[in-house]
């Protein structure tokens, strides 16, 4: 049992307890509660300011705004398969050495010579036809045709892959006609989000958000490449002028780089 006095800074609580030896004891507890104003913060704001010792003149200044963009690197990204070192193959004899080191290169200096030495005569004018064009080339028999253990020799002038004419089925480069340039997007939008949004229309082959090199903050535009031109056109119709967060996207086909 207990009885408590209320509405007073001093609270007295009395209760009875039976001790181990069977005697009943009265215990009185007096608790003094102290009142602390709830708005102590407000009160402190009105306290007089003081400067003991050397007075200093300080005014708070606002600094440049900082974007607290947490950069999260995923540890679970699949590791890139290591590319095995390209095998060296001699263009003259096909062995594992550089063409310039070929022991028989002096003997096969000209195409005619070469044909005489190592391969049966190719069809037509004897001009070498590269394997990719062979199907369209005259005659069905190439150096690899039955009857000849021919060594393919390409004596055409070397053309770097980037300059070569595009063949059907080749991967599309950045200047592809299926790439959209998405501009006027917030800085915080990242690849995952953009890809998720644009995948609703068609298969997104590539998605790249342009970022500042140092800060990794978005520069406000991105490139989205689709597998087909139809998808890209549909995406342009669908997303041009649509809002993303507080901004309105502008979607157009990307201009070739040059």
């Amino acid at each position, binding site marked *: 049992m207990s009885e408590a006095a209320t509405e007073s800074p001093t609270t007295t609580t009395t209760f009875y307890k039976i001790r181990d030896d069977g005697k009943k004891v009265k215990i009185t507890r007096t608790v003094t509660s102290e009142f602390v104003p709830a708005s102590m913060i407000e009160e402190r704001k009105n306290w007089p300011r003081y400067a003991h010792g050397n007075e*200093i003149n300080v005014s708070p200044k606002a600094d440049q705004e900082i974007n*607290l963009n947490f950069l999260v690197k995923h540890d679970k990204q699949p590791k890139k398969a290591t590319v095995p070192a390209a095998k060296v193959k001699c263009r003259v004899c096909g062995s594992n050495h550089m063409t310039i080191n070929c022991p028989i290169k002096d003997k096969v200096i000209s195409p005619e010579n070469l044909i005489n030495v190592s391969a049966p005569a190719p069809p037509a004018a004897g001009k070498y036809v590269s394997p990719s064009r062979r199907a369209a080339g005259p005659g069905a028999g190439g150096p690899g045709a039955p009857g000849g253990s021919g060594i393919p020799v390409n004596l055409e002038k070397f053309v770097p892959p980037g300059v070569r004419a595009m063949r059907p089925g080749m991967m599309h480069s950045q200047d592809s006609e299926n790439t959209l340039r998405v501009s006027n997007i917030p800085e915080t939008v990242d690849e995952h989000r953009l890809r998720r949004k644009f995948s609703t229309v068609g298969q997104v082959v590539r998605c790249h958000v342009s970022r500042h090199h140092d800060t990794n903050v978005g520069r406000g535009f991105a490139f989205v490449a689709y597998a087909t031109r139809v998808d890209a056109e549909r995406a342009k119709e669908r997303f041009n002028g649509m809002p993303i967060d507080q901004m309105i996207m502008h979607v157009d086909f990307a201009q070739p780089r040059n």
Partner: protein
Amino acid sequence: MIPIVVKGHERPINQLKYNTDGDLLFSISHDRRVCIWFSDTGELFGTTDKHGGAVNCIDIDRKSTFFITCSTDFAIQFWNLKTGELLEYEHENKEGEVVRGPMRIKYSAIPRFLQIHPDENKLLLVQDTKMNQPSAIVIYDIDMHDLENPVLKQNKVIYPKGSPYVKAVWTYDGKRIIAAHQDGSVSRTCVETGECELSAKVHNDNIVDLQMSQDRSYFITASRDETAVLLPVDGDFQTMKKKFQGDTGLNSAAISPIKDIIIAGGGKKSIEVTTSSGGKFEAHFFNKLFQADLGRVGGHFGPINSIAIHPYGTSYASGSEDGTIRIHHFDKSYFEFDYNEVIKEGVEDTE
């Protein structure tokens, strides 16, 4: 987020501390001055400089009525927060007479660190090894409920077993002390018996900072070996250890009370700055559970000496070797950020 920059000190900042309500921010420095700021606007509330040397440490009571500082001038001083004056107490002078004078306790060694007991009836003090004094933790009984007649009495002295103490903090029950040592080890000491219960080496270099979580059940240490370590108070200091790898020596680390975020700050030593490129004077943000490096906030022109997080977790302040304090109020994107969602997205993306 737009940081507020205040420069009230001419020499390096030693420590920053918020009061319990979080409306005041205390800063102490090598220039003998204590500055008190309003944490929301960065306005100056008051300054005092009655110390004779660099101020080493500060602690404020829970009701924000007084604060205690200790300094390299071998003194501990008790201040009234409202007036900025020293408290007065009755004590015996050299002639044995009882006199009333300012509450400035002269000391034989340099007091390096102090902390008020969670029950506010004891005071912990770590003394330095300089001037041929032994390293020790000194515990005082204090009674500051009546600021007119404060009482202070020495209770106990605890000496370290091995390496000297750097900092020491009370645990949640107030019966034990967690102490950081110069050789990178952490120990747990019972106050009642004065015996070291447990000691474990967690760092390869000396520990600079030791801060408790708000409920005092776990703590974080920051070391010059570029790591910060989070450990629970109970336990063997081996299991449940979280290590946060920074990229320079760390001077301070703090635990956010509302989010799973650790903020650690540091930088190259001022001596090494001219001989190497890039000081990395940045505050690192880590995820507390996954130890992931989330990002960093720069802006200082010297190593960050102290980091304090607002008791409500809404802002943090960093003080640097160049004497400036930057108060950062977090904006909406910080509170919306959820690391768990990021992990889920990452898994979906790789699949």
